[in-house]
Every structure is written in C-alpha cells, then in structure tokens.
C-alpha cells in the first residue's frame, strides 16, 4: 500500500495533476485518491452522526431539559408536517459536499479524457506503432486475432501473448452472447457485445509476467471458467514468436513459440488446466 501511495505521489509530481502512463498507474492514482478522500469523508460524517446521537440521547427529563424543552418545539400528534428549520447549516454542508464531489469528478474526467483520447494521440513509449488485436468472446473462451491473421484460442490452452512496453489496442466483440473481457492485473476491461465492436487499450510493463483475463458479464454455464492467460514477453521474444506465426495454417496449436527457449511460457503451458469442453465448436 505504501508502495502504491509512493507511486501515486510520483505520478502526481511528474505529470502534473492528471496522472499519465499505463492504465495500472492511472487507475492506482485515481483509486487511492478516491479511497483516501472517501474514507476521510465517511469517517467525518459517520463520526459526527455518532457524536450527535450520543450528545442528544434521551436521559430522562432533567431540570435543564425541562427548561430547554420550553424553547425547543417538538412535533405534536396530528399536526400538519413542517420543517424544523436549520436550512442554512444544511445548505452549507450540502455546498461543501457538492464542491468535493464535483471537483473529484472533474479531475477524474480529465483522466477519462486521457484514457479515451490523450493516450491515443501520444503513445507513451518510443514504440511507434500500437499492436492491434481483435478479441472475440464466445461460450466459453476467448479468441485473439493478431494483425497477420494468426488466431489463438483460450479454450485449447493458448495464451494471449503480448509484447511489454508497447501499447496494445483491443477491438472486442462477441460471437454469441454478451461477455465482458477484462484483465484485472492490467486494469483493462471492455464489453464484448455481439454485433458491436468496443475499443480499449493497455500497456503491459513486466516481461515474463502472466495475467489472467476473465469474463465479467454472466454468459452461461461456463462463465466462471471463461479465463485466458495473458503472457507478457520482452519485445524481441515476442517479435520472434510473432514472425513465426504469419504463414502458418491457423490450427490454434501452441507449438510455435519453440524458438527463444521461453521458460516462462512453457511453465505456463504446464500449469494450464485441461481445456474444458462445453460442447462448443471452436472455429478458427
């Protein structure tokens, strides 16, 4: 946690108020600001509430109360409802809360603009071109199609291989029902809707790391198991692998990264469970 806050501070310092960088960095910055402020507001408001509840608890009628109850008007049975005054204080607190919320959201909106537009215009790394990948969800797995037409399929145990430090743009759709493609570790998520294409991007920073992509919209009996492994490779490794894929027939088999002695990749393949057969036809 302290590491994350340190990240947050660095991000804020280096990039001004609007954090930039990978989606993980952006998310962490905004999440922790919201969390800290939210917790603070929550503690103050709830604390004040508990304090008042205690302070004005009924302790039976004392002399002071008796004196005060002459001044304080109490609701009477059968009266037409009316307010108890105190409007100014109410408005003050309301304005304060509105200012906090609106400025927070305005700030978050700046980040949204960065995520949606800024990042598109200026790729944060020296790698000029982003990698564009088609992602197609189906019951129950994910198909990833690279620019050269190579397709990998999570249901037969293929992993989704991406280069580190390079922007990856996803063009997400579905072959059947509404899915949602998300890689929580990379803070990217997108609805996968039949007949629609949704665009998202991410940058993975650590080569050799594996992430799990999951489905975030209920899509049927196999929803819980609809995962895919996202494998981050160094750029050369990835390039080597990728160049070997272009001319092959798209059998979806995973034997084509045998070049580079990719230990992580193989370890991963061992870990992968047997592909679950939901009786779905896998068409490449």
């Amino acid at each position, binding site marked *: 946690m302290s590491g994350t806050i340190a990240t947050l501070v660095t991000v804020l310092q280096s990039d001004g108020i609007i954090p930039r960088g990978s989606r993980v960095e952006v998310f962490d910055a905004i999440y922790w600001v919201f969390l800290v402020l939210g917790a603070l507001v929550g503690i103050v408001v709830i604390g004040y509430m508990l304090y008042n509840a205690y302070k004005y608890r009924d302790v039976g009628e004392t002399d002071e109360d008796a004196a005060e109850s002459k001044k*304080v008007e109490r609701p009477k049975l059968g009266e037409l409802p009316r307010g108890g005054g105190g409007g100014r204080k109410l408005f003050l607190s309301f304005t304060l809360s509105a200012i906090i919320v609106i400025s927070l959201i305005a700030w978050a909106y700046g*980040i949204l603009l960065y995520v949606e537009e800024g990042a598109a215009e200026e790729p944060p790394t020296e790698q000029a071109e982003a990698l564009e990948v088609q992602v197609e969800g189906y019951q129950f797995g994910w198909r990833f199609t690279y620019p050269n037409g190579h397709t990998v399929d999570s249901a037969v145990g293929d992993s989704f291989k991406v280069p580190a430090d390079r922007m990856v743009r996803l063009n997400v759709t579905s072959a059947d029902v509404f899915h949602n493609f998300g890689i929580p570790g990379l803070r990217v998520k997108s609805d996968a809707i039949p007949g629609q294409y949704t665009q998202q991007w991410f940058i993975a920073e650590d080569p050799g790391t594996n992430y799990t992509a999951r489905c975030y919209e209920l899509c049927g009996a196999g*929803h819980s198991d609809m995962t895919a492994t996202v494998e981050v490779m160094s750029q050369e490794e990835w390039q080597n692998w990728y160049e070997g894929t272009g001319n092959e027939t798209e059998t979806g088999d995973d034997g084509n990264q045998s070049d580079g002695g990719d230990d992580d990749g193989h370890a991963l393949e061992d870990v992968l469970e047997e592909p679950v057969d939901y009786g779905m036809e896998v068409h490449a």
Partner: protein
Amino acid sequence: MPDDNNGDDGSVPSGERDASPESRADGGEVTDGGHAVREELPAGDEHGHDFPSMGTVKRWLVTTNHKDVGILYTVTSLFFLVFGGLLALLFRLELTTASGSFLTGTAYNQAVTAHGLLMVFFFLSPFAFGFANYFVPLQLGAKDLAFPRLNALSYWLYLLAGGLFGLSFLQGSTFAGGWTMYAPLNLPMYLPEGVGSTTAVMAMIMFVISVTVSSVNFLTTMHRMRAEGMRIRDMPLFSMSILLTVWMMLFAFAALLAALIILASDHILGTTYFAATEGGSLLWAHLFWFFGHPEVYIVFFPALGMMAEVFQTFTGRRIVGRKWFIAAMTLVALQSFVVWMHHMFLTSINLEIKTLFMATTIGISLPFDLMVFALIYTMIKGRIRFTTPFLFAFGALLLFIVGGITGVFLGAVVLDYEFRGTYWVVAHFHYVMVGGAMAMFGALYYWYPKMTGKMYDEFLGKAHFALSFVGFNLLYFPQFVAWETPRRVYNYQPEFVTWHQLSTVGAFVFGLSFLLMFYNFYKSYHHGEDAGDAPWKYASSAEWAIPSPPSLENFPGVPSYKGGSLSFLSEEEVHGAAAADGGPAHGHATGDAHAGGHDDHASYWPLLSSVAVFVLFVGLAGTNGGGTVYTATAALGGLALLGTAAGWVVESFHVSEPELASRWPFDGVENTKLGVWIFLASDVVVFGAFVGSYIFIRVAEGWQNWHHLLPADHVVLPGLINTYLLLASSFSIVLAMVAAEKKSRAGVVAGLVTTLVLGIGFLINKGIEWSHFFHIHSEHFPEGWTFGTNVASSTFYLTTGMHGLHVTLGLLVLLWMIPRAWRGAYTSTEDGDKPLEYFGLYWHFVDIVWLFLFPLFYIL
C-alpha cells in the same frame, strides 16, 4: 360543537367519540385518549357482501380493505425474503472455496439470478408497499384506496406471479441469465432447456401488471383523496416518498413491461428482436436500464421516507430543511430517467454520451447528500430514544453513507471501467439496497404496534438489530476488500478466499438474526402488551391518532386539517363545508353521507381473476415447446379471465368518493377518469418503448437498408384503409357520447354498434393482410413472411400486434356495453354516460397510437 355522528352506524364505539370534539377544543391537537383496543367490528351487510372476521380464512381471500391488503403484502414479501435469502446462503456456501464445489454452473446461475429477481421485485418493493397500503390512506385521511378491488387484484397478481416464478424451478430450470437478463443470453437458444425460463419471464410480466395496477390506484388516491387542508407538500414524508415512488413506477415499469413482452414474444412467438446481431443486445440494455435505474430509487425512496418518519419521532425533532428534502427527492425522481447509460459505460457508446451521463449521474448523487445531512441535523437538540425502530433507521443511514460514498467511485468513469462486473458493484448496491431494507425492518418495528395493537419485545428487537448490523457488515464489507472478484462466478482468485469465507459467515449471522424478528413478532402478537393508540412520543402523523389497529373505516369522523392540524368532522360539518365549497366535484359523490359509510370491502373477483391470469400465463409459457397441454391450459386461462372479468363488472361494489378532500390539481376529474388517464400515460410509455425499439433496431440495421427485409406485397393500402376505419370509429364513439348527452338511447346504441363494426373491420382487414404475408412464396421469402423471418417482420408483427390487442380489448368492452346501452344504462341517469367517456378516452388513445404506427410501418 356538533356531536360526532358516527356512533349510530356501529363502526365506532362511544368511547371513541370524544376524540374529535376534544381535539377541536384544544386548538386542534388530537390527544391520546387511551382508547381500548377494539374487537373487529361486524361490518354492514346492506349490499349483500358479508365481511367475515379476521380470524377466518375467507376474510383474507375476499378482502379489499387497504389495511388487510397491506398485511397480506407484508407477510408475503417476508416469505420471498426468506426464499431469496436461502438462495443467497446456498451460493455463499459455494463461495467458501475459490473453485467450484457443489453447485453446477447452471445451478449457480439459477441461484444468483433468482436471488436477484426475488429480492428486488418480490421482496423489496412489495415490502414497502405493504406499509404503503396500510399507512398511506391513514396518513392522508382516506378511508381506503380509490379502487379497493384493484388493490386486492394487485396483491393477488403479485402473490401468484411469485407462485409462477416458483413453478419455473420445477420446469427443468428457472431463468439463469442474471437478474439483468442481458440479451441475447435471455433467449431460449442460450438458456437451459425447458419451459422454466419462459415461465419466469411470464412471472415477471405478471408482476409488472400488478405494479401498474397498483401505481394507477395509488396515484389516483394520493392526488384525489387527501384530507381537507392537506396539500401535496403537506403530506408526511413517508407518503411523499411513496407518491414519488409510484410516479417513477408508473413510467419505469412500463418500459420494463415493453421489454418483457418483447422478450416473451422472442421466446414464444419466435420473433428475433434480441437475437438481432445488429443492436439486439444493446436494445435490451437500454430498455432494461431505462427501467433499472429508476428502479433503484423506486426501491430506496420508501425506505428513505420511513427513515425520515422514524428519525422525527425518536429524535423528537421535525426534519431539518423539510422543503429542501422534498425538492431533493423530486429532483432525483425526475433525474432518475436520464442516468441509465451509466450502467453501460463500457459498451460502444461514445465519449460525448459518456460525459453527459457522468454529469447526470453525479448530479443525481448530490440531492442525496442533502437528504443525508438533513437527517443527521434533525438529531440536534433532539431527545433521542434508542428504540429498535430508531436503531434500524440510524444503522440504515450509516450503511447508506457507506453505500453512497462507494457509489461516487462508480461515477468516475475510469474507475467504473475497472469496477464493472466486480464485487465492488455487488457490495455497493447491497449497502444501498439492503441498507434500505434495514430501514424498512425498522419501520416494521415502528408500525407493528399500530398494525397488531401489541407492543413487540424491545430486548429481542435490539438483539435483532445488533446481530443483523454486525452480520450485514461482515457480509458485505469484505466484498469491498475482495472487489476484484468477478460477479456471478464461483471460480475466483484464490487470494480472496478468506474474505469470501468471512462474507459467508456474515451471511449466516445476518440471515439467522431474522429468526429473532419472526419469533419476536409471533410471541408479541399472542402475548405482547397492548400498545395503545400512540405508543411513540412525538409521533405526529394521523395513524397515531386512531386506535391500534384502526377500525375498518379508519377514522371516527371525516379527517380535516383545515384548522392547521388534524380534527375529525361530523357529517353536519362536512355538509356545511361541502355546501360552502360549492359541493363536491362533478356530483359524483353519493347521497350516502356517512363517513363510516356503507362501502363494500369484499370481493372474490380479484382473487379469481388473478388465478385466471396465472393459468393463462402457465399455458402461454409452454405453447412453444411445451406441447398441447400448455395450449389447452392457456385457452382455459383465457376463457376464465373473460369470465372473471365479466363477474367483476357485474358485481355491485360500492365505493364512495370523499365529499370533502384536497384534490389539487385534479379537482375537476372524478377518480375513475383520473385512473384512466394515469393508466393511459403508462401505456404511452409502453408503446413509446415499442416504437423506440423498432427505431433502434432499424437504425442499427441501417434506416434505408430495410426495405429488402419486407416482402413486395407489403404495401400502403391495407394500412391506409385501417387508418380510415379507426378514424371513423373515433368519430362514431364521439357521436355515441353526444347521443348520450341528449339522452337518446337509440343514438348511443347506433354509435357503439358503428364503432364495433368499424373495429371488427379493422381486425378483419389486418387478418387478411397478415394471413397473406404468412403464406407468401416469393423469391426472397419462400417460407412466408412470419414472426421470426427477420427483424423487420418481428417489429412489424409485434408492434402492430400489440396495437391490435388493444383494439380487441376495446371491442370486448364494446360487446359488453352495447346491450347495456340498449337497456338504457348510459341515458337513464344524470351521470350514466361516464363509462362511455372513459371508453372514449381509451379508444381515442388506441386510434392515436395507430396514427404513429401507420407511417412508421407502412410509409417510411
């Protein structure tokens, strides 16, 4: 001071009669006169309806009294709480391990889906409406709702809709596509085999019909039957919250009704709305969330109103900034219809729309800040008594603050991107929704003494609060910590397993705490102390000024706030006041002057009609794939429905409108007409949703890229002929009304018969057209152009078919009216032509709808 005149009709014991004069004498305050709790009174039998006592089963089958119906709603909703709760415990057990254990994928999906649907639809709202039924008329000063039989109908439709939903479990599998029912997973091709899924959809439709009937009833009541001197803004906050809730319900549920009818049509008729690759999936999301976001407030507002009441009573303070509180609620109610796309930030909607909906979403969160502060400030200078109701309301406010703050996170779109589909959302809305439910449990303790006449056990109540509050937080707070878990999976990241186990423990603590509540209520009902009329000091609304439980006719006189606070007028006073005011609106009030009146309270028809609908829907659900047994069942149900409808209208059921009431802004309309208006307003939204769906799908397909989906024989002429037929029929119904004013019996009959003939002509013309399309053998459509041929045929048949159904219903009513007109029913008495006017309104509406459909489906 004229004497209270109620003693003589037997509905008020003499001890009760003091209340009114006393209250007038001391400046309007109604004192707690310590009236004894009375036996249930034998009701008048003058109109041939005997009204059995509360101890009999028959009473509960026939009752139309709002207090009885309120109790029925409350008890039934608690049953569904247990049902939905057990399902939750089932999948919480499954979630104690990070990988699948004992539930299969389909079983798990059924459990989470049914849990959501049961809790949101069959528990939360009906629980709130149990209180609304019981207390809104009391708080307003009305004897009952405007249409007591329709109120009973709402209840029975609700109960049997729940029964239908339960039945779906036994038909292979209930609906398993999540409570949001996203398309196209909501279609038979993706759902588990069997009729169950369709039955669940039909159950939802039945529920929505119940809600619509109820909305019309409440709106008419609340706008036309408030006690003299009580303006809309003077209503107690609970009633105010219900008024806004019901307005939202009227329109939001209409959109859901359209969505569900389309879904049922996709299931049963084989139309292809949601299977349409271009836009079908998004269409559902738009329709569902257009309903779904207002639904959040529909569920929460009553809880908020109850919190406000409980806070005022137990702090002994009037609420701070009352008019701002009301303004904030009104703003939220309006704005709730323009925030729905924040549920769809990750769909392909563009940045501009995201920005707009982010702004409206944040905008709608601010009024809640104001309401929360108002409640907190109300405690200042209070004399706070920590009774069970207050503890629950206080706890609910605390939970709502947590739910609200975590909701702001979701308003920031970039955060929403990550929270979408995770336990953050689950935890957030449970803090809000179940937090609201906590307030309602508080309200149950608050009003229990009024409803039963007995005081609950305070110790057990507090123990229930303590256990449930701890259980609640143990259940939902760990879900924030483990928020990266995807929703609705049983296979999740192993690092969160401890948090989910804690959550499961919390679920059991929370669930078991309700055993205390049930035991407490059971025990107190039989052995509790008598509560007296006003057990709570500083309670101010009218229900506390009458005995616990209140008598059948509620008040010892005619309630009035004219003097600034509640008093009960005698008949003479009422007549004096009414005469001074120029008499009641439109002379619809009866000659029956008794406040205690001779209104009817018993009818079998609401129950029987609901059973007929139940049978019809069971059958309809299975007509596509269930076999002929289902078709026969549907036919049986349809006939039964016609029969019960006839029984309903034949039954003489007397309900008087109050002579003296605040009716702004509907002074000039009588209850039934207002009811018809309100119903038509919701029907406008239903048709609006149908037309909107057609436009949405056509735009997705390409507006001009549409005509190749239509057969060449789809020409303008049949539509044009039908337009003339309907326009002519609108004219003939006007002629009938003119004739009725002139007391010309023959003229009325002629007008109605002409309308009937024109309407039948419309249907015949349509039948010929449809039959022709069905049997086309063209190059493009060798198999005919039927419901499921393509999106164009689907939208054409379903939209114009819905209209045709409206025409058919109208004609059935005409068939009923013509013989009555022949016997002079609409010409023999002063106000006899009213039914003609109501029917005319409906018929004009149906014609106007056609004027929109004709260009959309025949010309463009």
